[in-house]
């Protein structure tokens, strides 16, 4: 496909297109319905709907700046840090709309873990990095703490590498190790879902490969929603793909389907152009 056609397709977003309805009858752990977000009166996301299927790897792709990270932040209400964030619609997690003010935010975040682009282990020992959130959750006994830490580290494949240095600073680990640590730290709370915001962008290719293998391993045990701008990565690990694009400065959901469908036979021309034009 030549570039000018690609550009033309990329520009032609139909006005009132809405996403295809949920493709399978799979249970959705998180159900985002008609969600809109604006910061300081500037709209960021418009009427977004997205089911996040349980125990599968759901990916969110789209150009940078179209609000993918904002969507993730909204799910665990990190948006509350903005003085003028306005959230409309509903984000249902196991039936409850977490946008309501009565939601207990601390529990919400213990139920839905999040990992960020830049791994930020706290500047303290590896053990302490885990103990802080675990103690917040109410885990007090020493043996319980130790076993949860061990399980989490084993889940991410870090146990062998760090079990002998749990009391040394976490900051001394390599980039890939730090990110796996952050994932383990989130998993130690035994969340129902794990949100990942471009977890490999700051890592080298080998570390990226390790994390991708880890994510594939976690499927089935955890519900995962991962934002990535790396289409090859999406192709490698996704079960379901949601494609976002921006329209008049706001992010909109364009298409949502099985990974196979999106990458090989998408319904929307923009999706097609994006997926093909950028992976050539």
């Amino acid at each position, binding site marked *: 496909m030549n570039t000018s056609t690609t550009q033309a397709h990329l520009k032609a977003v139909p006005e009132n297109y809405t996403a295809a309805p949920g493709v399978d009858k799979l249970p959705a752990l998180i159900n985002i319905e008609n969600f809109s977000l604006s910061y300081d009166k500037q709209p960021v996301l418009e009427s977004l709907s997205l089911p996040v299927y349980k125990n599968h790897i759901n990916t969110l792709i789209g150009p940078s700046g179209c609000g993918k990270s904002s969507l993730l932040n909204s799910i665990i209400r990190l948006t509350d840090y903005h003085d003028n964030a306005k959230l409309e619609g509903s984000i249902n997690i196991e039936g409850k709309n977490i946008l309501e003010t009565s939601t*207990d935010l601390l529990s919400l975040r213990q139920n839905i873990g999040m990992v960020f682009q830049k791994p930020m282990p706290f500047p303290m020992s590896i053990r302490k990095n885990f103990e802080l959130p675990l103690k917040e959750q109410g885990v007090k006994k020493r043996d319980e703490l130790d076993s949860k830490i061990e399980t989490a580290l084993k889940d991410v494949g870090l146990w062998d590498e760090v079990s002998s240095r749990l009391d040394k600073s976490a900051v001394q680990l390599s980039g890939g190790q730090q990110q796996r640590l952050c994932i383990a730290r989130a998993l130690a709370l035994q969340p129902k879902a794990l949100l990942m915001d471009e977890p490999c962008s700051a890592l080298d290719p080998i570390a990226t490969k390790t994390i991708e293998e880890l994510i594939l391993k976690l499927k089935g045990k955890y519900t995962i929603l991962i934002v990535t701008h790396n289409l090859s990565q999406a192709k490698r690990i996704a079960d379901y793909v949601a494609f976002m694009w921006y329209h008049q400065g706001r992010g909109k959901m364009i298409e949502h389907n099985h990974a196979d469908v999106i990458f090989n036979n998408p319904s929307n021309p923009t999706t097609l152009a994006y997926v093909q034009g950028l992976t050539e």
Partner: protein
Amino acid sequence: MSLLTRRKQRDQLLHLTLKLSALVSIISLFAIILFLLVESWPMIESTAISQYFFAESWHPTNGEFLLLPMIVGSLLIMAGAMLLSIPIGIFTAILWQFYAPRWFSTLLERMVEVLSGIPSVVYGFWGIVVIVPLLAVYQAPGTSLLAGIIVLTLIVLPTITLVANSTFQQIDKHYIQNAIALGLSRFTIIRHVIFPQAKRGLLTGVILQAGRAIGETLAVLMVCGNVVQLPGSIFEPVRTLTSNIALEMAYAMDMHRSALFLSGLMLMLVVLSLVLISEKLKQQGNNL
């Protein structure tokens, strides 16, 4: 009580406690102004402002409250000290940044840092034992406006130098690199690239130090001679507003005391304006 509620309550309690602490700072300023006002009130009520400038003399027991000589004294000392310390401070900072070898600059910088921490009373003391006698040799009595200016300069000079130095350091190195690449020479760069950028930070620092200079009490008290008069030359003794308060509070009563409080209030207002001006300048700098 569930873990949830306990956590929430703890966070709420924390928020409240912290907010109250922060309010203490506001309350204290109000308290200060309030008490000064209360104590000054008798004076404010009874005497017209013109008294301060046109009365016969400063004879509180006779009901005369000519503050003019003290005001002039404060202003002259501050002006003199600023006139001396600003250029010396700036030129020294220029020396550190652009002309001196690194080892010397670092040595001098450490020294000045220590100096800025020395209590002003020590400078005052040194003024009495060294500077005043030196001046007295030239022109008696030695305790004079000039002595006050010199001591005050010693007090503010370190801080001004440090402020000037850090202002120079904070200038974006890219400007300088570009200037060098364009073939500009040292003096031109200092004058036309560095100095304009440093002006704002320097001004803010200088204003704050001026406030400090006006407020300096004991050091100037020790070397100024404390005679209530408009000085005819810089070798004559003077008295500042601050020294006035310190000297007479010990035995002042009723209206006299009230007058002293009032002069303190006036000083506060002067400092308040200086602070507001420097904040305004900083704001403008941020908006650029």
